[in-house]
């Protein structure tokens, strides 16, 4: 603990606050157990075709683009998206398969985050996707990179392996490591602050494309 003001050590406030809280509570009260009668998982196993359909529908609803492809054609799909939008500078995290975007710049730890503003597009993997809510979760693994990477560029393509698609939020929570920096992404950035009308594209990437990689072809 750091006492920010030596005249009034912060540790003192800690003692006072904890003392107040302990006095406020009756001793010996045991909290009731949490009844988890809610759905802990959906009926479909991860990657089931029904889940992929649902995830796709939700993502489209949220304003994201969705492509489905087999593992050996991911690079072609990305190339087509790039050509269609005319993106020239692409950055990828170090752990993304190099074959996905040949010629992409690989992010480096010493690259200042503000320079990512000059990049058109970032392509990453994804830790878990939640079909019910259309949510992608990034956990900073080598194929997803540091948080700034998927935040500063205006266009994000996430490559999602079918096996990582679960139905419900509790299934995703169970799979994630809370000690990693986590970002839950449900569509492109948006706001409802003006008259509660939803507007897409504020500070985060204004374009989000998802490539669902299915092993069945």
């Amino acid at each position: 603990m750091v006492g920010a003001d030596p005249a009034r050590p912060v540790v003192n406030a800690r003692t006072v606050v904890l003392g107040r809280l302990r006095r406020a509570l009756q001793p010996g009260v045991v909290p009731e157990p949490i009844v988890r009668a809610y759905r802990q998982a959906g009926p479909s196993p991860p990657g089931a075709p029904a889940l992929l359909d649902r995830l796709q529908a939700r993502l489209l609803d949220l304003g994201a683009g969705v492509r489905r492809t087999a593992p050996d054609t991911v690079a072609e799909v990305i190339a087509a998206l790039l050509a269609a939008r005319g993106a020239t500078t692409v950055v990828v995290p170090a752990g993304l398969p190099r074959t996905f975007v040949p010629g992409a710049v690989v992010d480096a730890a010493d690259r200042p985050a503000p320079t990512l503003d000059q990049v058109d597009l970032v392509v990453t993997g994804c830790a878990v996707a939640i079909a019910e809510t259309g949510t992608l979760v990034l956990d900073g693994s080598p194929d997803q990179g540091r948080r700034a990477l998927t935040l500063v560029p205006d266009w994000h393509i996430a490559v999602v392996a079918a096996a990582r698609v679960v139905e419900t939020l509790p299934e995703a929570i169970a799979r994630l490591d809370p000690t990693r920096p986590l970002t839950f992404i449900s569509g492109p950035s948006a706001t409802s602050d003006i008259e509660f009308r939803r507007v897409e594209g504020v500070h985060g990437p204004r374009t989000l494309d998802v490539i669902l990689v299915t092993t069945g072809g």
Partner: protein
Amino acid sequence: MSAGGPAGRSGAHGPLRGREPFPDAARRALADTQLRQNLARATRTIRARRAEVVGEVPDWEALREAGRAIRAEATQRLPELLETLEAQVVARGGTVHWARDAAEATRVVVNCVQATGAREVLKVKSMTTQEIGLNTALERAGIRPVETDLAELIVQLAGDTPSHIVVPAIHRNREEIRQLFRQHLPEAPAALGDDPQELAAVARRHLRQKFLRAPVAISGVNFAVAETGTLVVVESEGNGRMCLTLPSTLVTVMGIEKVIPRWRDLDVLLQLLPRSATGERMNPYTSMWTGVTPGDGPQTFHLVLVDGGRSRALADPIGREALRCIRCSACLNVCPVFERVGGHAYGSVYPGPIGAILTPQLTGRPGDRVTGSLPFASTLCGACLDACPVLIDIPQLLVHLRGVARAGARQGRRPPSPSTLAMGAAAWVMADGSRLGWAGRAARLGRRLPAAGLPPLARWLRTRDLPTPPPETFRAWWARTRRGRS
């Protein structure tokens, strides 16, 4: 409030205390037809969206029940959970500070910022920093706070105060916002229209370079997981991600009641919050971080734990239920009083039904003529309880705090006894025919609730039966059968 002093203590106005009692403020708000139109349009939209996404969840009631239990456990284990949270954050490279009140909290934050030498800080929307009057304190220390949430930016540019917990600029329409932007933002083109898309684009241009350069950001927090030390911020625009990721120093200010026991509790709370708050299945962005992660995000992290009257609320076995609140605002959006008078009439950064029970408890002046008037700002219709994702019995707390207010006003600062409170509430209800009518209706609503919903009476009821209120009150029967005769 004076210079970040304990809110409401001095009798001066501040983030938790308006200039006048609710009835006076409400009367003026009701005369503002533009405000009423803005509010009616926005709350109607939110209510419809919330109803739709809540209706599609088959286990919504099971989630609410679990949410209630998780938040109740958090309040019952508060000191122990805070110690665990602190240990986890410190073990992962963060620094934890404690603050007894608003003045101490703002001092800690100012010191953290001054240590970096920064003259400007970015802020993520945070009700706790509004509550402690942080912007005023920063400005006094020569540090410019820049609000980055669109609604908070609108409020800041207008020199306004937030009028809603989730949508702080709900009282402003697009034309008013267009004028504000043209007046204050150099990035606004002369021909700026009032299309929300266009207005949001101006905010993006205005803040972009600030995000890329700012050395320090200040955030609040939606949940803090004790067992892992993980902090959670739920947002939409990406301004939260920017502030939590790009600056080298992050200062997070947290009301101590935001702690939850375990990681798994997010199963429940991350389903309840977005659907209740904005009517979304999931909000666009949720960020979670634990201490400091080498090579990713701020490398200096301060967590400021603020009491600010929460320990006092905890000491009231009935009042403490308000500490379960997850700040979703569903109760504001369904409240017939809020919809008509808006948030400013409450005079507190926490308006609406939840604000009416939270504010007098946080200020610790229940008998005050201003904050003490808030529990009376309700018809006790029960819509807030129906909407609350963690089942806070707001009508019951309103009645309880009415009693506290009466007793407080009569006895000065002496804490009233439970029987004084009960009699005070009864006296107030019975002193007026229309109030008695509402009480009868409230009691009939109570028929649907288990007796455990009456903690003040729980012990008394153990040996007695509570008479079941009739399906129709005498007054209702009289009105129905004698209609037009008197």
